[in-house]
């Protein structure tokens, strides 16, 4: 929904839009196979000591309301479809933040049969927050960095996001099939 206004207004409108986006990032949290460590640290960022609300971050329940998808944990086979589905339900513009070592690469679970690897095997990730688990300060820092990036215009509107994710999923499926064939002896 964009307003059809004359050119001179457009830059101002864009600025206002960007300002609003930076100052009101609503997040949704999905655990795709994490050990819980990262999840409780994400929750801890909402609590009095860290209080993410002062940056305007609200944890939303419905993907439809959210701007940022915060993912924790390696992607398990079972959770993969759900992860993609949640991502696709989110309205544009949307961003993905991977929290924790497992979400980055699979972490200690690399090589376990039900683990697909990091979040970026499935979704395009905009910010990585390493740590096992990352401290709440680190999570806040990561989110703020993502937002600063937005201000500088480094992270464009991700209209191609869906394609990327679909491609990634397809790739993963092919991998899976190959694997399944290999295993079934």
């Amino acid at each position, binding site marked *: 929904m964009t307003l059809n206004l004359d050119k001179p207004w457009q830059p101002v409108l864009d600025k206002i839009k960007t300002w609003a986006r930076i100052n009101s990032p609503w997040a949704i949290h999905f*655990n795709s*196979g994490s050990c*819980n*460590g*990262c999840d409780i640290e994400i929750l801890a960022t909402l*609590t009095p000591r860290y209080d993410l609300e002062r940056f305007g971050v609200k944890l939303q329940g419905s993907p439809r309301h959210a701007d940022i998808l915060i993912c924790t944990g390696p992607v*398990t086979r079972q959770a993969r479809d*759900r992860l993609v589905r949640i991502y696709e339900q989110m309205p544009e513009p949307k961003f993905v933040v991977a929290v924790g070592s497992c979400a980055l690469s699979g972490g200690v679970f690399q090589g376990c049969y039900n683990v697909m690897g990091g979040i970026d095997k499935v979704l395009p990730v905009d910010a990585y927050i390493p740590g096992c688990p990352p401290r709440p300060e680190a999570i806040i820092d990561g989110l703020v960095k993502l937002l600063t990036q937005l201000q500088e215009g480094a992270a464009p509107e991700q209209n191609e996001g869906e394609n990327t994710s679909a491609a990634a999923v397809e790739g993963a499926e092919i991998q899976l099939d190959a694997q399944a064939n290999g295993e079934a002896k």
Partner: protein
Amino acid sequence: MQSQQGNKFTIPIGPQHPALKEPEHFEFNVDGELVTGASVRLGYVHRGIEKGTENRSFVQSMYLLERVCGICSHVHATAFCLGVERLAEIEAPPRAQAIRVLVAELERIHSHMLWLGVGAHEAGFDTLFMYSWRDRETVLNLLEDITGNRINYSTNVLGGVKCDIDREQAAAIRQGLDFLEERTTHYLDVVTSDMMFLRRTRGVGVMTYDESQRLGAVGPTARASGVARDLRVDAAYAAYDKYPVNLVTETAGDLEARFVVRIKELFESFRVIRAVLDDLPEGDLTTRMPRRVKEGDTISRVEAPRGELFYYIKSNGTDTAERVKVRTPTLPNMASVLTLAVGHQLADMPMILVGIDPCFSCNDRMVSVKGTLDSQCWTWEQLRQYGIEYYR
């Protein structure tokens, strides 16, 4: 375990749902606001850890098993260490055992306070959530001070522990405990006297003593129903024989009793930690651990914050385990949820779910269940169809 079929309206909770920070899929059949059936689909956090241990050495497995669950990572590591040490016929020095107890109790405090907050949040009492999590930061500070990490502290190594406690840290812990004790007294007061909160907890989700026995509930969930079952008392491991724990039980078996049991256990934890600090044995932190572990099998059980944690470890004489079996406390408690759900209001579901303090990352390391015995199971095709309809 009764549940009805043929209900028209199903409320899914999970895998992504604000009530559960972890991806599990519950389905509640509702008639208006009344729940008439419940089922669960686990496996979203199943990572295949048990298989993972089969191609990792014992030392590597330690780190893997510590990440079975981020909330109770220490007890997983303790159970594994105690088991492997028994197989290798060595024993960690007394100081190490005492520190294991100390960290385990600190972890219990952190876990119970976390649960108190989450439980309150499910009831829509966000202020209590915020307060208990604020106070929980005190424990996390202490843990960070001792071990270097807030969560997943890796205190244990095979043959001992890697962190010592010096006098300053001991003083800091005492100070922290004094603060927490005061706060905990307040919380006990809140959960037993706040009328609005009691309306949501008293008489809700009652599990009788017999039911609890029949369903094989463990941990605080069972103790809230009057089942005196606590491994720290029954089969003292590590240094619990030196620092005995008193059993805390309640008889009501409802949500209020579960709140009360957990909060009262906090006082026990404070007492045990003080006892450990008062009487910390001198000596080494580790003994030499052989790289290869003798052939044999062992069962190692410890009391996690959520109940009995069961490890079966089989060694084949190499540096790699032949089989490691993990049975986490959430699994036996899951049956109780699905039974209790029927006949309650939809609004009570999150509370009842959280009442057992479920930890699905624990649960899923290996297993997934379809809860109620006679409820129908969904095939993948049905599930997929349902998912398509649901998310259309």
